[in-house]
């Protein structure tokens, strides 16, 4: 069942569950930060409405910088602001930022310890019809490898807002990952979001497998858990909304009993969230993992639903993976 302590959305499994995009949470969180702290500034590279930075831009025009289509300059200007007492948010699509400005961020923001938050939008194949050039499917891999940055991937719009605000409250670099389409609201304003901590959103007696899901795909994982329960298979589902710092204690706790893991992310399997968990377990307690995500392939144009299905990231795929991994326990 849904963890009763986490105050999750009671209507989550309704047909007409409320939906919203995680990027909307970014817009709201950024606006609130702007209201609370005059040192918060925002920069955007010609995608102000699409990334939802426009709420902030309209309210605080003097603290908003329109950078045009220039992601490198955006990152390094933000770095200059970030070493000068400002809390700078930069937003674009994740393929372009941190994609086109990867090294700029590495040197001027991460190594330089500038107070800058990188908001990467249009994550994953669920970006849909724009096709693979616009679907960020390696952004977790290329940011989590940096020392000292934090990486948050909210599961819904409400957590998106919380993650944005949490990022604004620490002084070091954070990478935030948002997606484009509306997805089910999983949490409520009262659900905890704590950087560096993973929560078990689905709990059951004697679980046989643990599913770690990051981002909107958590919804599919929860639906999978519910359906599996009806088939007599109990699982734990964990919201991996902080990928860095990695909650190693949590991971060990949630997997100790099950000894079998499925990771689910709309991202390449190589180097992604599942990879981070594989590293942690190999170092502490090696266990079998089935990885849900892109299997060494680019995607293509299509609706989110078409693509999520074709590339094996939907509820069914997760259920199959759970069954496979349980078998592997031997």
């Amino acid at each position, binding site marked *: 069942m849904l963890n009763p302590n986490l105050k999750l959305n009671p209507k989550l499994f309704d047909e007409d569950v409320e939906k919203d995009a995680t990027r909307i949470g970014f817009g709201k969180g950024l606006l609130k930060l702007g209201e609370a702290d005059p040192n918060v500034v925002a920069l955007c590279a*010609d995608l*102000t*409405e699409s990334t939802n930075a426009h709420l902030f831009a309209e309210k605080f025009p003097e603290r908003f910088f329109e950078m045009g289509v*220039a992601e490198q300059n955006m990152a390094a200007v933000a770095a200059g602001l970030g070493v000068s007492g400002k809390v700078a948010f930069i937003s674009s699509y994740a393929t372009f930022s941190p994609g086109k400005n990867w090294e700029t961020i590495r040197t001027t923001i991460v190594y330089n310890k500038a107070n800058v938050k990188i908001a990467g939008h249009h994550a994953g194949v669920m970006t*849909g*019809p724009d096709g693979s*050039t616009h679907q960020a499917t390696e952004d977790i891999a290329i940011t989590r490898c940096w020392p000292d940055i934090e990486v948050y991937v909210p599961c819904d719009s409400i957590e998106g807002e919380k993650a944005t605000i949490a990022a604004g409250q620490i002084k070091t670099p954070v990478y935030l990952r948002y997606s484009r389409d509306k997805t089910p609201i999983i949490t409520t304003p009262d659900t905890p979001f704590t950087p560096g901590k993973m929560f078990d959103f689905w709990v059951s007696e004697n679980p046989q497998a643990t599913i770690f899901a990051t981002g909107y795909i958590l919804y599919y994982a929860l639906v999978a858990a519910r359906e599996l329960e009806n088939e007599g298979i109990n699982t734990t589902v964990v919201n991996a909304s902080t990928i860095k710092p990695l909650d190693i204690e949590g991971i060990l706790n949630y997997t100790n009993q099950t000894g079998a893991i499925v990771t689910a992310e709309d991202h390449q399997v190589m180097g992604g969230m599942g990879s981070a968990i594989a590293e942690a377990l190999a170092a502490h307690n090696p266990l079998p993992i089935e990885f849900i995500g892109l299997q060494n392939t680019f995607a293509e144009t299509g609706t989110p639903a078409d693509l999520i299905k074709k590339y094996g990231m939907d509820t069914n795929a997760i259920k199959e993976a759970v069954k496979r991994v349980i078998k592997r326990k031997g």
Partner: protein
Amino acid sequence: MLTELSKEKLQELKLKANEARQLLIGALDAARENSGAGHTGGPLGMADIFTAMYFHVLNHNPQDPDWEDRDRLILSNGHICPIRYVSMAQSGYFPVEELKTLRKFETRLQGHPHRGVLPGVETTSGPLGEGLSQGIGVALAGKLDKKNFITYVLTSDGEHQEGNIWEAAMFAGKLKLNNFIQVIDYNNMQIDGNVEDIMPLEPFRAKYEAFNWHAIDVDGNDIKAFVDAVKEAQAVKDKPVIIIAHTVPGKGISFMENNYKWHGMPPDLKDVEGAPPKGEQVKKAMEELKAEGERIMNQES
């Protein structure tokens, strides 16, 4: 060398361009159905240039898209690919009906163009600022292979805010690359607004001249003037050439012209100020285009 553009040919091209706009609206109508998205403003503005390219300028063979002596048309601002797809369909690269698959799952007409899935598409693009460099590479290969083809690179004004473009401009200037012509869609439009408000490019011509290019300003919606500009460009041998094509985004549809809201939205997706209500936009657009088609037809011939 380009052949002379006769009066008859010009009229034919104008009709083709008008047909292209109609096909484009049809394709975007389908794209909206297929996936709820599609770019309208830029493609409409570039319909005249694409028509001129595919039906007069380019040395190409739709039956043999990989013909090694073909001129290369590199599209850097990949998001305007719908108009490229239309011109390609009109030229015979693929059936016109396939245009209805724009942005549909498993289509060859990807939301941004991808090399390999559709013969005739020379490079993958979408992320801005990269096509000028790619085109230079293609042109250099032509030089190494002692080929006579010309590489045309289409770029946009918005993407000139990307540093990569200026790296490429500097390199082409160093090379004095002369088997290569850039055409920029200078429409003063990008996603967040007008280019001159968002991140001004003016004085634009002076920039290219300072990067050692030959620049030609032209009305990009005037087919005759554009063809003349290409002719002038082909004659320049000591510098790379940029044709600065001043175009009207949304050209041909009164309620779309010069309005940046139409950058990335297909008709009938939303109500838009100054436009017919959602549900009537495609119809109204087609009416306007058909009337314009008649007008061209009746222009003395």
